[in-house]
């Protein structure tokens, strides 16, 4: 099991180095570094309050980092406005999904599609709907009336429609029944096969590790462990650190 370090691979979809972020006088992230290899799923595990959401928001610009660097395929993005980071190619599926409750599913896809070049939009939409057949049947239904699982799928679909180079998912399994979570993660698996770079923040270790090729464990705003799923599963201390963090 390696100490937290960034991989020197030049084809990293995302490289975070020394990120410090917080609100007002409080610091939540202390010198966080991680790397998301291109075309792979990387999972960020941690308990409530460990800093997963803050880290994802610092990457996407919803929280302004105090210091440190964030590079998207080599392009420095730390400190940019969040909507510009979205345009740079990060698709963010926030915790709580943040859908538009009175707008139909199709509108969500259209709004995400604004960031996709017009010529490719129709093809992308077909691919996205193929990934989530359940919502393909509900295109005209208002998002607020969908079930939890369907809402999660709409949130992911919306982010995918922005034609991202990197997808960030914040606890997609939160509040969902296990069967529903399974279908969400099936879709993620397919995405991985298609070569999408993904950073996934999760509380549920089993689901998180089932699709990841690399995992980081965050605790109290610091990366404490990293490794491959096999390495982490083999260590009981991981479970303890995780449950007790």
């Amino acid at each position: 099991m390696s100490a937290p370090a960034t991989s020197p691979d030049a084809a990293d979809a995302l490289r975070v180095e020394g990120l410090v972020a917080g609100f007002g006088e409080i610091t939540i992230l202390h010198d966080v570094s991680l790397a998301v290899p291109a075309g792979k799923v990387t999972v960020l595990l941690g308990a409530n309050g460990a800093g997963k959401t803050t880290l994802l928001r610092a990457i996407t610009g919803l929280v302004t980092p105090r210091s440190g660097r964030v590079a998207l395929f080599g392009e420095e993005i730390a400190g940019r406005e969040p909507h510009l980071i979205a345009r740079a190619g990060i698709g963010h599926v926030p915790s709580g999904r943040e859908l538009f409750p009175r707008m139909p599913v199709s509108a969500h896809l259209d709004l995400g599609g604004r960031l996709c070049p017009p010529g490719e939009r129709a093809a992308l939409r077909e691919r996205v709907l193929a990934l989530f057949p359940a919502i393909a049947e509900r295109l005209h239904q208002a998002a607020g009336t969908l079930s939890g699982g369907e809402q999660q799928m709409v949130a992911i679909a919306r982010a995918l429609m922005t034609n991202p180079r990197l997808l960030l998912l914040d606890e997609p399994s939160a509040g969902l029944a296990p069967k529903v979570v399974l279908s969400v993660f099936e879709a993620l698996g397919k995405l991985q096969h298609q070569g999408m770079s993904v950073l996934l923040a999760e509380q549920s270790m089993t689901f998180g590790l089932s699709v990841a090729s690399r995992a980081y464990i965050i605790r109290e705003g610091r990366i404490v462990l990293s490794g491959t799923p096999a390495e982490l599963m083999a260590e009981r201390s991981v479970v303890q650190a995780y449950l007790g963090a």
Partner: protein
Amino acid sequence: MIVLQLVVNGVLLGGTYILLAQGLNLVFGVMGIVNLAHGSIITFVGVFTYWFVTQTNLSPLLLMPIVFVLALGLGGALQRLLLEPLAKLGNRRELLSLMVTFGLSYVIVETAINCFGSQYVSLPNLQATWTVAGLAINEALVVAGVLGAVISGCLHVWLHYTASGKALLATSQNSTGAVTCGIDVRRMRGISFAIGSALAAIAGVLLILILPLSAPTADTLTILAFVIVALGGLGDYKGAVLAGLLLGLVQSGVGYYLGGDVEVVVPYLLLIAFMVLRPQGLGQAAR
């Protein structure tokens, strides 16, 4: 027959109210603030239209595109200068914005008084009453009602069928989600206030043809608009249409059966009743 007359009056009156309120509604929907200067914009443009028409004898409708554009620009600038600095203040933002627009309303009203005086003025262009199928129909109300419907229709089309409108609607329903779609939420706030001001300006040009306006009583219009917005569910513009119609109908009926004095109080009573009993209003949006 009386009932039918009352209903017709009520519906047309409702149209007038809708005309009054849509600008305020848009701003509230997207920015979550109540623009207390709304009525002052309407009144300023209204008395300016009166002055313009009496000075130049040109049609007031010529002014509509001009004031629309001017209000767009001014509204956007005011939002940037006065309200955007408050955007990052969390939940104190609402009350502080209220204060700022409160101050702004007085600036606008006093400017209007200094330029155009403080008496009631109105333009007599639309005072005819037609008789259709035995019902007396007031020309001014028809114009206002129809225009109210047209403007609401345009808003609906814009918000639901155009890219920019959908972006605005999305921002009003969830600004975080909007950001993930690459929408510049700050620009959306500026646009919504600009359009809200522009709608108020148009309402001003039209209202001076229908009822007398005076600069010192501008806040009456703000309150009426707010009543519609609150009844309709604060930002839900379909609800605002319903609320406008409801208010128009209730007022028409009350005016007939209980007299003009009670009629005037109806909006305020309805407002307080709704705020206490059903704060989420008539629309489906529960804020």
